């Protein structure tokens, strides 16, 4: 018998899925779309409190060189980013912002389970069409799905006329 301690790997076990912001931000828009389509919708009761938000993809960045894109996203996650996440309470929610020590909430939304814009099934919809929002914000429509325990993948659309455009992907962590 060998007296050494040998590390082993389980050869055909499901590989661990990377879900940190850096790994997700390396994915292309098409890969993020596919990932989002494969995820389940959370129940309203599963999402609540202050959730830390991280942007992982922004419209318009996909044509930039990979390194530059990663750099911009890292800067948005770091010192340049003002958005800190979302606060959800039942059927209402708002966004959390910070400039240095100054913290405030701005841009509220209604929360409800509804189909996604692309028809890939139900999601938790964040609808910014509420009276307290400035008019330009009311076109924003968010969608959330469960990425893991206490972790959600979200995306933001902007409604203009009869069409919508996906502006960004983000994660929210409880």
């Amino acid at each position, binding site marked *: *018998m*060998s*007296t*050494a*301690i*040998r*590390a*082993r*790997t*389980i050869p*055909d*076990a*499901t590989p*661990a*899925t*990377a*879900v*940190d912001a*850096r*790994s997700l931000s390396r994915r292309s828009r098409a890969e993020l779309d596919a990932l989002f389509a494969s995820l*389940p919708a959370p129940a309203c*009761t*599963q*999402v*609540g*409190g202050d959730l830390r938000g991280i942007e992982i993809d922004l419209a318009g960045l996909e044509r930039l060189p990979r390194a530059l894109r990663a750099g911009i996203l890292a800067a948005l996650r770091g010192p340049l980013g003002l958005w800190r996440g979302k606060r959800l309470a039942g059927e209402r929610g708002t966004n959390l912002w910070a400039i240095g020590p100054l913290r405030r909430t701005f841009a509220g939304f209604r929360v409800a389970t509804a189909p996604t814009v692309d028809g890939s099934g139900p999601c938790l919809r964040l609808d910014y069409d509420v009276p307290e929002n400035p008019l330009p914000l009311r076109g924003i429509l968010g969608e959330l799905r*469960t990425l*893991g*325990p*206490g*972790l959600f993948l979200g995306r933001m659309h902007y409604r203009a006329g009869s069409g919508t455009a996906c502006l960004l992907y983000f994660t929210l962590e*409880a």
Partner: protein
Amino acid sequence: MSLLDVIVVGSGFGGAVTAARLAQRGLRVLVLERGPWWGPAGTEQPRSDRRIFPRGSWGVRKLVRGVRWARGRATRDILLNADGLVEVHSFEHLDVVTGSGVGGGSLIYTNVLEAPDDGFFGAFPPELSATELRPYVDRVRALLRPVPLPAPLPDKNRAFERAADEAGLGPPCYPELAIRFGTSPKVREPAPNAAGVLQSTCTHCGCCVLGCPERAKTTMDLTYVPVALRHGAELRPLCEVVAIGHDGAAYEVRYRDHRSGAVHQVAAPRVVLAAGSLNTMRLLFQARDRHRTLPLVSPALGRRFSPNADLLGLILGTPAVANGGEGPALNAFVRIERDGGLRFIVGEVGLPLGALPLGGGLRRRLGHATGLIAMGRDASTGTIEYDGRGLRSTVGRAMDPALFDDIERTLERVARPYRARRVWLNAPNRRGASRLGTVHPLGGCAVGRTPEDGVVDHRGQVFGHPGLFVADGSLYPRSPGVPPSLTIAALAERQAALME
């Protein structure tokens, strides 16, 4: 669909045992351990996965992994080194020190394997008794092969025997220690242990509580973990679990790989939480109250918490001890009984002088120092709460003041014959202080008959969440008053045997 059968979180006395026994049954087991392989046990592991024990003035920076601070209105988690050896939890009136690494608490415990008396099991459900647990205790003993300290005894033992006698407590007992002893501490005699892993023999260096550099201490990373690996289990070191949930088909576990910084998710139909009492409780609190993924976890979570009435006394400047750092750290104790049952034990615990970065002068002076440690059967009515960010607790002396006063009086009696310059009771706090320190946080996920009085059933399965198990010190429904390691391991043996 996951091809894993079980994910085990932690590799200490509970996790390593469960992983080994389930792997032996042919299950596909993945062990996630937040710390690295430490010391000689990691020699065969990749460089990124292993660390040498924190020694010397430079190495000591790796001693503390981090501090979880929850005092006053502040809650802070300060991670200093993901690859540090010990973690400090600082509550309102209680400081807790726990181990981190492959082998968990076994890396820094005092090697004592002591079973509690039969009366302790009165707090467990009727399915679990001292008699029923005995075969599982024997299995642990068969793999760890504990023995009492053989002659020649270090000088400090003679001093402790005299002190106990003069204090009227009778002769100390010599408990079984999970250490390989050779014919003499001056000679190293390597040989395979019961797990087939090469172990050396004890040189009486006294470094037990900061990691044995000799591979003489029979820790989990030298016994149960190799058994698990040999039977196909996979262990991922430096992988810290941050969240658990259930997706309807399997339990999902999210962990941070400290080697790469990446966060991953894995899933399996069974998860065993053996991350140590406080970390297991935190994961369950987060899952129930913050992530809302395990909503049925019992409201009893956090109750029946106990510091095992640990209390340390330091004897400084005593002529009775010339080398207080010599010999296994804790190898003898006296039992103090009240009303016909065990109330607490008092043992002599040497300082790990060989492992500390001390100058020659200070080292010589501390050679004339030693410690007394007490563990007791306290009221175990403490509570751990969760404030949305971290754990909080007000547990301290007020939980059982009569016991702690009794312990301090007894320590003072035992210390008197040492004729020391200074006796520091309740170190590192002060005598009579409400603040205590412990290395044995127990309870919080107590075994119970129903979800109203416990978090898990007698098999360690979480009420309301089939397939989710707890296997560490948090299972204790009350403090045993003796070192808890043997019982944690035996309960894990039983749990693995009963797991479907």
